[in-house]
């Protein structure tokens, strides 16, 4: 059991659900589909995927980001309302992963976007994604 502070408990009561906007390249989407499906079913925690970044609290970034796609990711981030959280999923997103020597992928995501949480793995386990989202609730007061 995670021990929560009083503040976090209050925030937990106020904030019921987090809405997610996905920015997935390459295998990113395919590897996180289990999250949506019935086995892990993220909707039981109130996590749903929204159609526009303007409705989203959390931006999921997965898969390698190319120089072209990261520009669009920035545009997506800019459209999100505050407080907003960026979660990077998987090694390709964080460091380029197996594309570390590609001329066309970015190597440090933090150079482009303010990342709140990194979830390593190739791909990350669904449980790890849930834990990351739980951490958002823990730190929600610190967020702008």
């Amino acid at each position, binding site marked *: 059991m995670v021990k929560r502070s009083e503040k976090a408990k209050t925030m937990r009561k106020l904030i019921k659900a987090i809405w997610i906007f996905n920015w997935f390249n390459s295998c990113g989407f395919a590897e996180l589909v289990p999250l949506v499906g019935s086995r892990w079913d993220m909707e039981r925690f109130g996590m749903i995927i929204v159609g526009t970044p303007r409705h989203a609290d959390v931006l999921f970034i997965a898969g390698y980001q*190319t120089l072209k796609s990261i520009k669009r990711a920035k545009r997506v981030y800019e459209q999100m309302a505050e407080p907003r959280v960026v979660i990077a999923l998987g090694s390709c997103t964080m460091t*380029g992963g197996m594309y*570390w*020597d*590609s*001329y066309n992928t970015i*190597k440090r995501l933090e150079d482009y976007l303010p990342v709140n949480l990194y979830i390593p793995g190739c791909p990350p386990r669904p449980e790890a994604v849930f834990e990351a989202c739980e951490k958002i609730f823990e730190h929600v007061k610190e967020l702008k």
Partner: protein
Amino acid sequence: MDTKETELLDKIKSKFKVDGRIQRERRIWILTDENKLMEMCNWLKECGFIHLSAISVTDWLEDGKYELTYHLWSYDDKILITVKTKIDREKPTISSVTPIWKESAQIHERELHELFGVKFEGNSDLSPLFLEDWEGAPPFRKDFDWREYVREKFYDKENEREKVYYD
């Protein structure tokens, strides 16, 4: 044996004086000069080769040549013709086949312009496709050292985390 393939190949050989061979059933290779290419492509399209499935470039670094390969398919004859032509590697210029195959040629030529720097004369849109703000040499050229480029552009030797990339 007088098959469709041999018949067609003989016709092309006598008409354009080019080299060619039957690779196997329903596959024909033609090696041609750059200056005969347009005329031949026009003729082939009239013969029913309406489908341009791909254009590709091979980089022959030692010979100083780019080899362009056009894959043409005929729905009537069920034959795939591969037209190959070599152009100079340093000044890679060739006339575009967009007047013949329109959009299907357009996107291939645009990509090859981006990746190999081949200039297709007559193609109206050769703007970058995937590589926005690209400054280096065309990345698919064999003498482009992409690993060096990546170290230069993305990594920092002083960074503890990225030191390994310099070993």
